[in-house]
């Protein structure tokens, strides 16, 4: 760090990303509460373990290869060039460690890692109460440390080929995180099948209500809270035009989005809250006041508007959020009825459909605007956004999940046996718990009797 201004900028940036990571941790706490609330009592501990252990598995694999993929794959490789030099972000690089000459890589890596956990957690909710942990944790590594980070390298990198060629714009990850995770969840669900009892013999879907609606709603509130950190983490907090080294003239320092195009925290604060509100209002009406869907609708609203929330007017963000939420709700029930898909927490709808729709809407709303501060990039356009949404939801989300799940099902390692599903996944731990309680209370009663 050459000067005090440079030092302050670096340390501020370091601290900024660190704070976003702490905030984003709440997303995971929220997902755990949400899943436990939405499930039946006989599966709670299994669900918690399923969601907890994705943390270390995605973390270490994101260290070993996920982060390198982000820096090495912006050209495809093979679409507009070869592999980029990702050596500074390879797991054996001295900058991927305790290093006084690099204060940013660690916190930037961690911010992306928390997105990885989120992608895996989105899939987790959809498949509760019948997937084997073995299968889910392999899926968690694939979505968290491989597929989402490939799409980030393509469409969420200042030099990604989708940004350059398609003009792809997805500032707060409608497609890059949510559409891909929703598509991935759908790919697993198609092969996994519904929970026992979800559909009547004539195919009519049954509602499986959450055992604890309070926990579900508090979980969603925590996810909203963590989402603030997510939004902030998508920005570069302060940078000079000289460092960007693009087309911006003058010397005015700015915050930027991930593409290094200018934005402000003020703008995204307006739009975060207005899109949350648009989603909540429409979800309340369309679900006739159902708490589960009203809260989920708030999330769907933010997710729909996220692709363009660096540039929208707040009232535009509110209406876009409402449109996406309405479509996500209707699509959820249509797909459930038509294709017998049991999405236990509405994850495919809230993340997948809302994310897809948000990316497409941004193509019309931001048509002709620059996708990047660099010369010769395609401008934002509806066709580029539509293709981008298909790549996110279908090509990198649904397709690999479907193929891998088919392989797992063929090997008998995807779904738990029906008897275990009916008995509950906590059956053995509950028996051990009861035995331990009876043993210790019996011993204590005997000790108490001797004292008399």
């Amino acid at each position, binding site marked *: *760090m050459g000067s005090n201004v440079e030092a302050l900028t670096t340390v501020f940036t370091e601290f900024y990303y660190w704070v976003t990571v702490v905030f984003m941790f709440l997303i995971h706490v929220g997902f755990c509460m949400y899943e436990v609330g939405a499930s*039946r009592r*006989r599966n709670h501990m299994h669900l918690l373990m399923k969601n907890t252990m994705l943390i270390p*598995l995605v973390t270490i694999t994101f260290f070993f290869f996920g982060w390198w993929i982000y820096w090495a794959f912006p050209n495809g490789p093979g679409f507009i060039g070869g592999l980029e030099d990702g050596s500074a972000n390879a*797991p*054996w690089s001295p900058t991927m460690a305790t290093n006084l000459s690099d204060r940013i890589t660690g916190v930037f890596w961690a911010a992306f890692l928390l997105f990885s956990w989120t992608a895996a957690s989105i899939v987790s909710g959809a498949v509760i109460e019948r997937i084997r*942990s*073995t299968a889910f944790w392999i899926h968690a590594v694939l979505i968290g440390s491989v597929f989402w980070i490939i799409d980030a390298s393509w469409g969420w990198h200042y030099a990604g080929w989708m940004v350059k060629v398609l003009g792809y714009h997805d500032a707060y990850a409608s497609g890059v995180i949510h559409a891909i995770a929703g598509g991935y969840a759908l790919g697993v669900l198609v092969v996994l099948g519904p929970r026992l009892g979800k559909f009547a013999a004539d195919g009519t879907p049954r509602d499986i209500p959450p055992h604890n609606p309070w926990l579900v709603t508090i979980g969603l509130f925590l996810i909203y809270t963590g989402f603030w950190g997510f939004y902030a983490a998508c920005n570069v907090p302060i940078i000079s035009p000289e460092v960007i080294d693009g087309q911006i003239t003058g010397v005015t320092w700015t915050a930027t989005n991930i593409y290094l195009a200018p934005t402000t925290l003020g703008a995204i604060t307006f739009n975060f809250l207005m899109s949350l509100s648009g989603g909540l209002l429409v979800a309340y009406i369309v679900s006739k006041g159902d708490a589960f869907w009203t809260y989920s609708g708030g999330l769907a609203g933010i997710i729909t508007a996220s692709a363009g929330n660096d540039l929208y007017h707040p009232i535009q963000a509110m209406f876009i959020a409402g449109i996406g939420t309405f479509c996500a709700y209707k699509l959820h029930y249509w797909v459930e009825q038509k294709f017998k898909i049991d999405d236990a927490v509405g994850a495919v709808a809230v993340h997948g459909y809302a994310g897809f729709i948000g990316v497409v809407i941004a193509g019309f709303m931001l048509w002709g605007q620059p996708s990047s501060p660099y010369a010769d990039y395609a401008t934002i356009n509806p066709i580029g956004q539509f293709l981008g949404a298909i790549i996110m939801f279908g090509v990198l989300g649904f397709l690999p999940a479907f193929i891998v799940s088919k392989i797992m099902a063929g090997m008998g390692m995807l779904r738990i046996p029906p008897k*275990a599903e009916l008995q509950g996944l906590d059956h053995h731990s509950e028996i051990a718990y009861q035995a331990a309680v009876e043993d210790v209370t019996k011993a204590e009663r005997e000790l108490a009797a001797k004292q008399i």
Partner: protein
Amino acid sequence: MSTNGMSSWAVDLKDVGAIYPFQGTEVILVVLGLAFWIGFHVLQARIEAEELANAERDFNAEHSGKSIDRY
């Protein structure tokens, strides 16, 4: 003698980079880390398969009914 090459902080920090011990072993650490990761999946798959086999073997309709009724 120092495991990271630093035996004093009487230095200009602009000249200091990595400060973790045993620099130069990074590739070995990565290989061991990958083995640790794969080993977890292998052992976990065995544990879960055994648990589920036991659950099937010990299935009890009455107990399951109670679990279902607890909702």
